[in-house]
């Protein structure tokens, strides 16, 4: 198992996490650990759409790029971390405690950033 996949598998064990994925800005899946509920191509497409649209809107407003984006929807939460050429996407249930998982998410993003640089 490569280090990126390993990091994602570890992240899956964090409370409230239902799936995670590393996807490039143009929607290519680098690695994923999604449960049976999610389809890889749909999550990748939607995540790249949201990340790219948000970055474009921020750039047009003279704000640059995002480092992290936490999205709260009625039935779930999604966290996006910029890791250079790609984005770490973490799908969580609506009751997940973001504060509790913050450290794990940030250290996973850091490890992935490092792996992406080495790769």
């Amino acid at each position: 198992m490569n280090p990126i996949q390993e990091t994602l598998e570890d992240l899956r064990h964090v409370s409230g996490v239902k799936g995670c994925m590393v996807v490039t800005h143009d929607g290519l899946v680098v690695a994923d650990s999604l449960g049976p509920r999610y389809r890889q191509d749909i999550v990748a497409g939607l995540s790249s759409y949201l990340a790219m649209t948000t970055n474009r809107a921020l750039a047009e407003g003279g704000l640059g790029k995002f480092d992290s984006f936490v999205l709260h929807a009625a039935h779930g939460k999604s966290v996006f971390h910029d890791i250079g050429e790609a984005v770490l996407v973490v799908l969580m249930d609506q009751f997940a405690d973001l504060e509790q998982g913050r450290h794990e998410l940030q250290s996973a993003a850091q490890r992935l950033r490092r792996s992406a640089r080495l790769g």
Partner: protein
Amino acid sequence: MNLIQRLKIWKELRRLEARVREEPSPSTFVDLGQVFLNLDMQERALQAAEDGLLLFPDSAELKKLRTVARRGVDRARTDELRARIEKNPSNRLYGELVAILAESGDAGSLHATCEEWSVRFPHDAGPFLWLGQSCLQSFYRSLASRDGIEAVAALERAIGLEPKQVRARVLLAELFYRVGATQRARTLLDAVPSEGDDSELQNLRRQVAAARSLGSDVEELLRSAEENGLLPNAPPTAAVASRGDDGIAAIRDSLAAIAEMEGVEKAAYIRGTRALVKGDIKDGKDPFLRTVRVVAKAGHRYSRRLDVGSFKRGVIQGPFGVLCICCYGEVLAAVQCTTDAPTDRILAELQEVVASSLYAMGVSQ
């Protein structure tokens, strides 16, 4: 449905009609309406919903029943009109059909029917007037310049075919005024005889006379409205303005309080095409407004397509600090703040602003 099933339903119907009289409640009316729907008696179902709503005006179930029944009634009526148009097409029948489609909000069918109508009756202004109204509605909702340009083309075509067409002139003048082409709006309104003006038209004339012109290139002005996400001139109808004012005063105060919070740089409240801003924002053209609008829209799409319900809140961190967005439907409140600002408290305040504005609009019911 076989005869025995039908008899059973009729028996159930009699029982429910008696129950509605003896122990009226939203669910008894809904049950009765449901049986009428099963029997394909849409008008009776609509009647049951209307009767129920007289007694229980806030019942969500009854409102849903009314919507379903009305859709059924409209469908039956449009099928009938289409059959009559097939046999003997006329302007009147097309007008009736398009009016129903407009009421039901079926823009796709409305456009197709107007196209068919204009092919069969090329000298009639009716299809272009309806088409223009439909495109205008889309434009005011989304501010997409393409819709605005289509509305202008359709309404100008309607005026070209029927120069005395007052409604098309007024709608076009209102659009010109709203995007800032005041001079062109004035020219259009001058050609409308002032005898018999209703209060809305009088109000529009007054506002157009007082407004400053921002140019005469309507396409350019429409594009600029889309880019800025704002119309230079607010809706002219007194009713809209007065209804919004009460709620807006309270929202303005709440927004000012949020802008005063530690670390907050910009704060905005956006509802449809209107925006209130506080903090380090000069006017409605600040790019912050467009950024939060686009992010909220993308968040909505993402959440809906991922099947996790609607987008409620977003917290975006970057070199610019933190953007907090809170929204419900077309209402959103957003803040740009520093990384050390209390984002949880800010989000709670933003949520409060959105919720109280929805309450003021009556959406929460």
